[in-house]
């Protein structure tokens, strides 16, 4: 049971480059989420998706783009990376049967130079 996976686990990029972080879940969960984790801020929601082709902004969406063409995948793209986007990014998923409980992936540590 693979659960929820993220790739890459570590990424170093330069300011201005486009970066895509991948998230894949095997549970067929309807909901998927992207968070960033920064010291002193806990986890902040970037975007979420209620189903394929349905996405919505979270608390800190600026500079990010998401898509969800398939239920199991929810990629996050930084169109033009900035240093302030250096962070650890977590993907999570949630099924309809257990309201709100979210299951997290292992995270991607992104450094923007």
């Amino acid at each position, binding site marked *: 049971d693979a659960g929820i996976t993220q790739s890459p686990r570590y990424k170093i990029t330069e300011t201005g480059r486009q970066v895509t972080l991948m998230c894949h879940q095997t549970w067929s969960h309807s909901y998927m989420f992207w968070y960033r984790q920064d010291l002193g801020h806990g986890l902040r929601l970037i975007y979420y998706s209620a189903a394929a082709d349905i996405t919505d902004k979270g608390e800190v969406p600026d500079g990010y783009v998401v898509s969800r063409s398939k239920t199991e995948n929810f990629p996050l793209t930084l169109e033009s990376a900035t240093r302030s986007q250096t962070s650890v990014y977590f993907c999570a998923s949630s099924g309809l049967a257990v309201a709100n409980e979210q299951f997290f992936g292992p*995270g991607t540590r992104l450094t923007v130079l």
Partner: protein
Amino acid sequence: AQSVSQHNHHVILSEAASLELGCNYSYGGTVNLFWYVQYPGQHLQLLLKYFSGDPLVKGIKGFEAEFIKSKFSFNLRKPSVQWSDTAEYFCAVGNDYKLSFGAGTTVTVRA
């Protein structure tokens, strides 16, 4: 919008000491409450959750939490910590399939 406040930023304890982490939230409607733990270098894992019923919830690894509706609180407790409890602990409040997280409390247990 809901917000979650964790009272302690960093807690340092000795093994066998008791642990209590405070969590308060602001939201007037029905919420689901969670405590997640993040061990060093790992992803978040669910410790325990409260949806309804008995306000005293027992989770994994000897943790428990008490929901006090009148105080909008969901404090986490463990009677006797171990070195392996060193981690970051996050309180979260859920509504409408979204979670709002507190800033987290880093717990360091000294052997």
